[in-house]
Every structure is written in C-alpha cells, then in structure tokens.
C-alpha cells in the first residue's frame, strides 16, 4: 500500500514545469514577500496578485482552480489571525460579552484580519503551485544553487524522504490492527479502554522504533550507492532566454502589485 498524500508533484508537461527551478523558487519567495509587505486593505493589489496566480495556474496546465482547491490547508492558521479582529485601534463595531471577557470587534481589526487572511491565502497558493510543478530533487537543487546552507537543504531532503517511511510504517501498523479488530455476536467488542490505550501507546513506540530502524537501512543503502549529501537530478539546470524573460517579467508584475498597493 502506498501513500502519496504528501507528494504534490503533478506529472504534466507545461511551460511552468519546464522553467528552471531557481526561477520558480525566486519568484515564489518574491511573491510571498510582496504579499507580506502590502499594506492592510489594499484590495486592488490583492486582486492583481490573484490574477497573476490564475495566469500561473493556467500556464501550468493544472486547471484554473487547481491551487485554490488545495489552499484549504491554511484554514487552521486563520485561528491565529482571528485575534486581530479585536484590535484596540479603530472604531468599535459591536460588543460581545462572554461573561469573563468582553470582546470588541473594530473596523480596523476587521480589515486587518481579512488582509492577513488574503495574504496568507495568496502566498500558500503560490507555494502549492511551486511544489506541484517542480520535482523535489530539483527544488533541493535549486536551493543549493541559491546558496542555501547545505545543512538546511540536507535536512529538508531527508525530512521529505522519511516522511513517506513514517507514514507507510504507520499505515501498516494500523492495517494490521484493523485486520484483527474482530468481534463476536452478542459480545461487547473492543476490550477495556485502558487496554486499547495501552495498545495504541505501544503502537506509537513501535512506529518510532521501526521507522528508526528502517530509515537507518535506507540511509545505509544510500551510502552504499555513493550518496555524498547531494540529491542529484538528471534535469539540466541551465538558464535559457525564456527563463530570464520570465524572471524579469514576474519581478515587474510583483513591482506593479506593490505599486497598486501603495499608490492609492
């Protein structure tokens, strides 16, 4: 049984897929930074950025709604931003008495909340597009070209590799337990709660032990085949004229978004 829930790369051939990974990394980071420094409530700039996202979606042959459909992963992070609604600056809109505390949402706070929401939502979508159109070794390779410290790239590479080991191991354990989770007619099944907890606890221990032992074996196999700390890829990394063009054009678009955001 395989799990590829984490492997977001989508095999397609498109203009975006063929771009040099360095370009994609630089543009993604620039886009995220740009979103971060846009002032609160610059809706027109946010809309422009979103338009840019749609263009990338379209160019990568994944369908216009691709990144939007996958962007729900930011939902938990919204919880963090929710406190912004009750910012003490600005005019109060209402007053909610919860007994132990009184919450006062303000207009300023509301604008800030939605701006934070939009910013992170846009940024996450671009990151989703980056991993959907770039194979992981290429991404690591790009990081190395961009002078990210080796320690970091190695950690990221192994994290990615072992994520699958861990989830696969967890999946096997759960399946084994499921296969023997039987019952008898007219008999209360499932055993005592304490026993079930103990089983689950020891399964967590097993998961750690096994993943550890397996990752050790995988690492040995990597060493045996000459792993030196680099993830290699056969894809040639050579900047073409199209790559430079895209880089310059994208940076201009991002500058334009900033312009729209600050000049009102």
């Amino acid at each position: 049984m395989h799990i590829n829930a984490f492997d977001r790369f989508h095999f397609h051939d498109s203009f975006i897929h063929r771009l040099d990974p360095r370009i994609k990394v630089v543009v993604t980071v620039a886009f995220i930074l740009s979103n971060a420094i846009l002032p609160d409530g610059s809706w027109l700039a946010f809309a422009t950025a979103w338009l840019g996202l749609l263009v990338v979606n379209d160019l990568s042959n994944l369908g216009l709604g691709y990144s939007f459909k996958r962007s729900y992963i930011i939902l938990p992070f919204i919880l963090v931003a929710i406190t912004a609604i009750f910012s003490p600056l600005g005019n109060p809109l209402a007053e909610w008495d919860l007994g132990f505390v009184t919450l006062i949402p303000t207009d300023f706070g509301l604008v800030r909340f939605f701006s934070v929401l939009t910013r992170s939502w846009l940024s996450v979508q671009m990151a989703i597009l980056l991993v959907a159109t770039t194979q992981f070794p290429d991404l690591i390779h790009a990081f190395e070209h961009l002078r990210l410290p080796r320690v970091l790239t190695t950690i990221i590479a192994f994290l990615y590799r072992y994520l699958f080991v861990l989830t696969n191991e967890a999946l096997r354990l759960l399946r084994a337990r499921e296969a023997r989770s039987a019952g008898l007619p007219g008999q209360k099944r499932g055993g005592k709660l304490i026993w079930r907890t103990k089983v689950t606890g020891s399964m967590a221990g097993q998961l750690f032990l096994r993943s550890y032992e397996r990752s050790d074996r995988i690492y040995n196999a990597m060493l045996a085949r000459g792993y030196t700390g680099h993830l290699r890829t056969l894809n040639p990394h050579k900047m073409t004229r199209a790559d430079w063009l895209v880089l310059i054009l994208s940076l201009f678009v991002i500058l334009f978004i900033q312009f729209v955001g600050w000049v009102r």
Partner: protein
Amino acid sequence: MPVKHQPVYEITIPECDGDVLQIQDLHFAYPDGHVALQGVSLNLCEGEKVALVGPNGAGKSTLMLHLNGILREDGDIFIGGMSIDEQNLPIIRAMVGLVFQNPDDQLFSPTVFDDVAFGPLHMGLPEDEVHIRVEEALAAVQMNGFGERLSHHLSMGQKKRIAIATVLAMRPQILVLDEPSAGLDPRTRRALINFLDELPITMLISTHDIRMVKELFPRMIIMDEGIIVADGSTVELLNDAALLQDHGLEIP
C-alpha cells in the same frame, strides 16, 4: 499461444454453492488508477484447502485484502452467507484469519504475547479464555514459551509462525495466508507444510511454492492480470504445461 481466459475445467472437487466464501464479480482499482482486480468470482466450501497461484502483480494479495474487509469495492463477497458491511465487519474479521505476506506488517505489539492476545482481547473474551487461546495458538505453531519475547527481534521464520498464531488465537473459520512459505529455510518450510496439512479448517493460501501446492492442496486457482484464469484440480492443472507457461508458473 494466445492466453486462454476462464477455460472450462472438469472440477472433481466437492461441489457446493460456496457456503464458506462466495465472491461474485469483484472489481478493484487502487486510488492511483492501477486496476488490480477485474471481475473475480470464486466459491470456497467448508474444509477446502485451496492454493492461489499466479505471478507477482496478478492481484492475489489485493484479493486477500478484500476477504476481511481491509479493502472494499464493488462486487459481492459473502463470508458464511454474510455480506461485508459495517455491521458484519467485526464478525467477519473473527471468521477470516488474514495473515499478511510480510510478518512485519502483521505484528504491531511489543511482545509476542500482546500480539497473539490482541484478537481475543478485542473480541471481548474473558481473561482466562484469552490465556488459553494464546497458549493454544503458540503451541500450534510450535512457539510455546516465546510469549515474553520481543516480536521485532525474532528471526523471519519465527515471525512468520507468530503471525499465523495471531490469527489462530481468534479461531477463524477461514485461514487466508499470503505466501506463507516464502523466505523460509527447508526445515521451517517443512514444519509449516505439516502444520497446514493437519489444521482442519478452510484455507486459501497464495504461494509461488508449486511443490507445496502439489503436496497440500487438491484445488488450485491460477490468477493473472486481475482475473482467475483457471480454477480446478491441482493434478490436472499442473499437467497443462501450456497453461502454466502462459501465466509464468514453473512446471514441477
């Protein structure tokens, strides 16, 4: 020679309408789109010992995972007349003892005792009964006294036997084993064959070990590319050299 699908064979095995296991036109595709089963129909009668052979990737393991509801897909599967649904699932899991190919997939508890006792405890049996069943199951696979050992530090042959004990403790009516003799040394393999020979329950056993099939199983089912290509008496099928060759099986 073209591949023959579903040829008609004279079956000399006791006929029944599949009182233990009945599968009708089972289809299954994995989420990545790989089609593993494309219309499998199969009947198993009380006390029958049946071998399931076929090349790697034929769908044998996928079929076995359906038998106690780990995988569920279109087509009707009846275990002892019960269909596999949420309500019947616990009882079906008690009836069908499924042993995975890799014992590391089967064992999930720290000690051998915990693993063998898991099934009976989950069924809600009283403690004395659980102890009796664990003793019995370990004795059946000749692993008495291994209760306190750590499962993941046993040898391959020992793990395989413990894996079988984990389902025997549940006293299943059908034993479903996925390649039980793979990777065993000759002595352990011999012990396994003798043990399966003496065990008086219905079994469906997938294997590449044709010599074991010849010795142990009167009925044999050949699977290839997600369908059953032959189902009949082992002696007859093993004499059909062309059929065996077509489906990548060794002529004994």
